C-alpha cells in the first residue's frame, strides 16, 4: 500500500473522530471514558483515532460522525472567505482527512467542498509564496493546514535558494567541522631570546 510508510499519513490517521457504536463491545471500556464496566454499549458515542474508526466502520461496528471541521458552521465560514480561515485550529490535516472520510460518510458534498476550499486558498498562497518576503510569511503560515505548509515551503525554499545564489558569493563553503575551536592542552612557553 503506497500510503503505508508516509509519515504524514500516519500522523493524520491518528486524529480523533467521533463515532457511534452500533454494537456492544466487551473489554474495550478504555475507549469510553464514561463507562463503568469494561465495555462499550451499543449507541455510545466515543472518540477513536481515525485508523481504528475506519476499520470498525468496514466491519459495520460503528458509524462515523462528521468531524467538527466539516460541520455546517465551518463550511459557512469557509464559503465566506476561504483564504482567511485558520485551518490549523480546526484540523491540521484538513484535506487529507476529508479525502479519507469521503467514502465513509454519507455526506456527498465533502469532496467538492474540499476542492473549492483548496482552490481559493491556493490562489492566495501562490502570490504570497513566491514573493518570499520575510515579513508576510509569519502572519500567513499559522492559518495553513499541514499539506498547504509543505506546498508553501517548497516554493519558498526554492525561491530563497535562487536569491541566495543570485546574490553571489563563493561556491565553496567552509565545512562545519572546521568551525569549532579546539583547546590545545600543550601549554605555551615564553619564547627564549
Amino acid at each position, binding site marked *: 500500500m*503506497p*500510503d503505508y510508510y*508516509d*509519515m*504524514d*499519513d500516519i500522523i*493524520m490517521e491518528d486524529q480523533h473522530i467521533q463515532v457511534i457504536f452500533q454494537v456492544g463491545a466487551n473489554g474495550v471500556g478504555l475507549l469510553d471514558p464514561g463507562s463503568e464496566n469494561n465495555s462499550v454499549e451499543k449507541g455510545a458515542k466515543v472518540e477513536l483515532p481515525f485508523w481504528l474508526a475506519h476499520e470498525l466502520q468496514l466491519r459495520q461496528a460503528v458509524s462515523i460522525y462528521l468531524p467538527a471541521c466539516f460541520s455546517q458552521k465551518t463550511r459557512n465560514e469557509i464559503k465566506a472567505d476561504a483564504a482567511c480561515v485558520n485551518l490549523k485550529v480546526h484540523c491540521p490535516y484538513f*484535506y*487529507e482527512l476529508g*479525502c479519507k472520510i*469521503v*467514502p465513509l460518510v454519507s455526506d*456527498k458534498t465533502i*469532496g*467538492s467542498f*474540499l*476542492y473549492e476550499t*483548496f*482552490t481559493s486558498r*491556493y*490562489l492566495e498562497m*501562490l*502570490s504570497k*509564496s*513566491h514573493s518570499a518576503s520575510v515579513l508576510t510569511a509569519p502572519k500567513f503560515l499559522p492559518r495553513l493546514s499541514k*499539506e498547504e505548509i*509543505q*506546498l508553501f515551503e*517548497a*516554493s519558498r*525554499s*526554492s*525561491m530563497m*535558494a*535562487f536569491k*541566495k*545564489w*543570485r546574490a*553571489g558569493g563563493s*561556491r565553496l563553503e567552509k565545512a562545519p567541522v572546521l568551525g569549532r575551536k579546539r583547546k590545545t592542552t600543550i601549554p605555551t612557553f615564553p619564547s627564549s631570546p
Partner: protein
Amino acid sequence: MMSGLTYDDSFSDQNILRASGLGELQPCLGHNNSAELPQMSSVNPTSSARRLKPLSLASMAGQSDPQLSLLSAPEVEFLAEDEMVEIVPNIKMESLNMICGDFGPFFPQIACKVPLWLAAALKKRGKCTIRTPEWMSVDKLTQVLETERETPREFQPLPFHYIEISKLLFDHAHDDVQDTYMVRSLIEDIRDVRFHKVESGLENISGRTHAVKLKNLSAMEVNIVRPFMMRTLQAFYKHDNPQIIQQHNISGRKQPQVLTRSTRNLRPR
C-alpha cells in the same frame, strides 16, 4: 528524477494538438536541452477520459515525498558551464586534451570556442578575453523584453541557461561586456516578466489539468517552480478524483465505468 506525473499511453500527440486550441497556458512543444532537468507540459483536454497516475500516492500526503528532489541553484549553474562561448586568447598554448573533449591549440588573437568553465578559468588567469554571446547585446535584449511584455501567454526563445551564463559572465568578465549595467538590468527585467507569466499561468490550473507545458522556459526558472508545480498538480489531481466517484455514485448506473477506469490507471508503468 521526476517522480510526479506520468502520461497515459493513449494520450497521443493528436490529442495535444486538438486540445491546444482551447488550452490556457501556451500549449506548445517543450524545450529541452538537458536531460537532467525534467520537462513539464500543460494541456487542458476536453475529454475527461484520461487520467494521470502519479507515481507517488495520489494524495496530498504526497507533499512530503522526498523524491521531489531539487537541483540546487549552484548545481544548475554547474550544468550551465558546459555551454560553449567564444574567447580570444592572448597567449599561445598547445591543445588541451581532456576527457570531455579536446580544445584546440590556442593562438594569440585567434578566436575559438571553449566551454564556459574553461573560459572562466582562463579569464581568471588573465589569458584570454571572452566575447559576449550575440544574444547578450542591448538591442537584442531590449527587443526580447518588448515582446515578452506584449505576449502575456508566450515565452520568448532565449538560451536555456541565459540566467546562469549572464551571471557567470558578469562575475568573471564584466569588462568584456559592453554596457554592463544596461545588460544587467535588462536581464533582470526579462526574468521578472517571465516569472510573472509563470505565476499567472499557475492560477489557471484546475483539476482538469493533466500536465503543464511551458515553452521556452529557462533552466533556472524551471528549477524554481518545479517542486511547487508538481505538488500543486498532485494536490489538484487528488482533490478532483473523489469528486468523480461521488458524481457517479449519485447517478448510480455509471458505477462499472469507474471501476474500469481505476483498473486502467493501475496498469504498471
